[in-house]
């Protein structure tokens, strides 16, 4: 396998423009003769399908949900970054580019990230013209807020539902194309294999989840935009249906899988409540704009809080450790996610956790200071220059409610605690996966004609993603990159004609899928799919989670292999193949997670350094910060599939060259 990133030559800021100008085009009259499959309808998939449909290609879009509008991009809360510099705080394309590279701990490609920063402004323009109702100021201009890891306000938002509004914007564009007949939508369909003909991606096998029918769909190019693989941990902030299957099938067909160990653990999630828990809920990072994170200084206080004999509000100011503000004065509570998460784990490991669950893991996110200071500001603005405490707190709570009302309501629903009165309890949880299918500058995988976009690819976030950058990347890929690069690829296909689905390749792929399904249904084991998924998740969280070490990773590789063997022997999948069968769907997904999980551990094991979301206990500096090894590990690890036993996977390396910025230790102090 040869990894050619195809990064164009020339100065960084001209690369994309020059490259775009010289890409091949497909004339409008030829586009309807060309079929494109898009798998996934999140920000990347919906925007890609809509844009390609607009251009006149014949697009078939697939999602496993009942409607394209349900894709998990919808759950993104905080915002989307763009280098508009509307707030006049010195922002620029270069700064967004620099922040993203630095935030990613120097493990992403300069050219890709710069392109992302370049088109970020267009995304906002595009979305506003689509009718996305971003938050505005009284002057009618767009409002911004800050996010972790940056010192400017460049995040555009729509209350705590930015992902929803952006996805519904992309969904509306997609709906328009469906209505016009340019896109054919296949909801409740799951892609179960990629079909290659003559080495090129030429179609997929999809299962109609309602009838169970296996369908062959051919196309001249296939775009995978099926999201990330955080659900390998069982508990994560991903949707229940989020899965790696489409990406993994592509990987099995020969696409390299890059940086699988780079997983983002989000610092502000609601802690685990019990063993029946099915998923974790994120509290937007934007809350760190207003909340202060702390734990009790004394272990006895932490214990008293856990057993209910002490309330957090009773702990005196001097007995609280605002550990992020203490350790990182420059960025304080707004350090990047990986840093904040690890710090939370450290204080909890010291026995200072405050959540009354099995692990005691939880820290406080406290809004009382913000309530007071904002209350005072509002009172002043209303002409009251000497508000009493009661008025101040009342106004402050109103301010908080306007800004974060929906998040506070959600928190209260889940925990039954009122975060206006008592600090929120939070703890890190798996949230986003930076790794994914390896793609070149065109977002094309190592399989010709198979493009991968959004969270499903590995391209832009290095070892850690900054807040509000996932939405940016999804839409950048779908709206502003793929339409150019896919056309360039398809320019050679105008004479190909319709791809037949009667070829042996399709028949073979379909019969393979059928065999797998039949195997599960006839397995007649004793344990449910969830049983294995939970076990896998526990191993992943404990040994391939926030802090990793050689011993744990080796154990994980071993244990995951065992769970996988047991899974195939003993899983019980009820029902039949010709009906809506959620257990079968889960089984097919977990089978892929059981391979991926092992590969993640392999990847983490070979990366003998700490960077971004990948923290190896062996590689930290005296203050417990990540210790990168740029000499040896300034590369993208790209794995080649060599069979179900992923310990046999072969590692390829794409070296990362930093020509335009100087690599430095990441410092948020």
């Amino acid at each position, binding site marked *: 396998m040869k990894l050619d990133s195809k990064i164009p030559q020339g100065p960084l800021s001209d690369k994309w423009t020059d490259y775009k100008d010289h890409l091949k085009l497909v004339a409008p009259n030829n586009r309807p003769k060309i079929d494109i499959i898009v798998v996934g309808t999140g920000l990347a998939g919906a925007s890609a399908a809509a844009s390609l449909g607009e251009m006149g290609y014949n697009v078939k879009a697939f999602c496993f949900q009942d*409607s394209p509008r349900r894709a998990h991009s919808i759950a993104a809360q905080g915002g989307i970054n763009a280098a508009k510099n509307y707030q006049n705080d010195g922002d620029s394309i270069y700064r967004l580019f620099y922040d993203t590279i630095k935030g990613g701990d120097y493990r992403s490609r300069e050219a890709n990230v710069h392109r992302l920063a370049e088109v970020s402004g267009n995304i906002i323009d595009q979305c506003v013209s689509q009718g996305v109702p971003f938050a505005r100021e009284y002057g009618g201009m767009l409002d911004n807020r800050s996010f972790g890891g940056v010192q400017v306000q460049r995040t555009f938002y729509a209350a705590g539902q930015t992902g929803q509004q952006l996805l519904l914007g992309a969904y509306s564009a997609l709906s328009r194309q*469906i209505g016009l007949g340019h896109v054919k939508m296949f909801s409740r369909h799951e892609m179960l294999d990629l079909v290659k003909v003559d080495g090129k991606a030429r179609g997929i096998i999809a299962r109609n989840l309602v009838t169970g029918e296996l369908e062959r769909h051919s196309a001249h190019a296939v775009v995978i935009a099926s999201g990330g693989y955080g659900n390998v941990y069982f508990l994560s902030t991903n949707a229940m249906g989020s899965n790696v299957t489409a990406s993994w099938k592509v990987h099995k067909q020969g696409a390299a899988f890059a940086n699988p160990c780079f997983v983002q653990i989000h610092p502000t999630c609601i802690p685990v409540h019990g063993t029946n828990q099915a998923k974790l809920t994120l509290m937007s990072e934007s809350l760190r704009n207003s909340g202060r994170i702390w734990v009790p200084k004394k272990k006895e206080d932490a214990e008293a809080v856990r057993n209910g004999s002490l309330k957090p509000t009773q702990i005196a100011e001097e007995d609280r450790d605002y550990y992020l503000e203490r350790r990182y004065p420059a960025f304080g509570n707004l350090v990047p996610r990986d840093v904040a998460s690890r710090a939370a784990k450290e204080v909890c490991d010291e026995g200072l956790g405050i959540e009354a669950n099995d692990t005691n893991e939880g820290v406080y996110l406290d809004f009382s200071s913000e309530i007071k200071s904002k209350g005072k500001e509002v009172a002043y603005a209303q002409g009251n220059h000497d508000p009493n405490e009661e008025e101040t707190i009342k106004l402050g709570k109103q301010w908080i409610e306007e800004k974060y009302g929906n998040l506070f309501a959600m928190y209260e629903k889940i925990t039954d605690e009122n975060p206006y009165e008592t600090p929120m309890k939070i703890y890190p949880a798996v949230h986003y996966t930076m790794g994914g299918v390896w793609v070149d500058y065109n977002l094309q995988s190592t399989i010709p004609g198979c493009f991968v976009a959004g969270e499903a690819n590995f391209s832009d976030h290095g070892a850690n993603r900054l807040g509000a950058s996932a939405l940016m990347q999804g839409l950048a890929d779908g709206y502003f990159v793929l339409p150019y690069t896919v056309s360039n690829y398809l320019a050679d296909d105008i004479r190909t004609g319709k791809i037949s689905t009667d070829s042996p390749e399709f028949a073979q792929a379909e019969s393979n899928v059928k065999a797998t399904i039949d195997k599960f249904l006839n397995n007649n084991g004793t344990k449910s799919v969830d049983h294995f998924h939970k076990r896998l998740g526990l191993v992943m969280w404990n040994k391939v989670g926030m802090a990793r070490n050689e011993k744990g990773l080796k154990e994980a590789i071993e244990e995951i292999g065992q769970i996988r063997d047991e899974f195939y022997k003993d899983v019980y999948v009820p029902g039949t193949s010709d009906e809506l069968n959620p257990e079968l769907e889960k089984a097919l997904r977990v089978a892929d997670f059981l391979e991926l999980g092992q590969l993640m551990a392999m990847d983490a094991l070979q990366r003998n350094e700490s960077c971004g979301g990948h923290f190896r206990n062996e590689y930290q500096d005296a203050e417990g910060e990540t210790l990168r090894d740029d000499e040896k590990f300034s590369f993208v690890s790209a794995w080649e599939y060599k069979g179900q036993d992923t310990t046999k996977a072969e590692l390829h390396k794409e070296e990362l060259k930093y020509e335009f910025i100087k690599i430095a230790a990441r410092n948020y102090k």
Partner: protein
Amino acid sequence: MSAAKNINITLKIWRQKNADSKGNIETYKLDNVSTASSFLEMLDQLNEQLINERKEPVAFDHDCREGICGMCSLYINGRAHGPETGTTTCQLHMRKFNDGDTIFIEPWRSKAFPVVKDLVVDRSAFDRIQQAGGFVSVNTSGNTIDANSIPIPKDDADKAFMAAACIGCGACVASCKNGSAMLFVGAKVSQYALLPQGKVEATQRVQNMVRQMDEEGFGNCTNTGACEVECPKGISLENIARMNREYLKSSF
């Protein structure tokens, strides 16, 4: 906070093999349900129990489990998304129920939302309404005007956002005695009608979306207001009135 405890409940659940077969209510007993569990985690627990008993688990729609994707549904004890207002089923917690309770769980009932299996219904009618006009006809060019070149009054932007907060779950249809979809359509029409970008094609939009809505077989609005009460996102009836105005305007 009330400390979590375990309760025992009886479930009466609609079971239906597929769209063509007849369904009926089945009774299940479920013990040791933590009150800290969400309603869907309770159903997970039931399914685990059914699988262990070699019985067919209950099919229900769900995905994000944080109240935003709109995939979960369920008519619980006679109310869409259960007894708590402003809440999707996935955000409903078992602490709202008591030990010994009997809980009815039924699918959304609407001609336009046929049952697919058990508690799963087909809501693609909503997609088709959106396809009929729920968009601004702007192509992806990257050369649209600068996002700040048309100032939008904060009040309008906020109202548009509140309408756009609809998650398309269908609780409005399910709870309306007429099975009307007007809150859903009204919210979409309103979002665009309130923004300068959407005003340009307001006439065709409201005409096309209402026509599609009628074709799908939804009932008509009689302003009972049930939809507004049951809407997990608090979409206001004002949006239906705005759609009525827009439709009137578009008729002349």
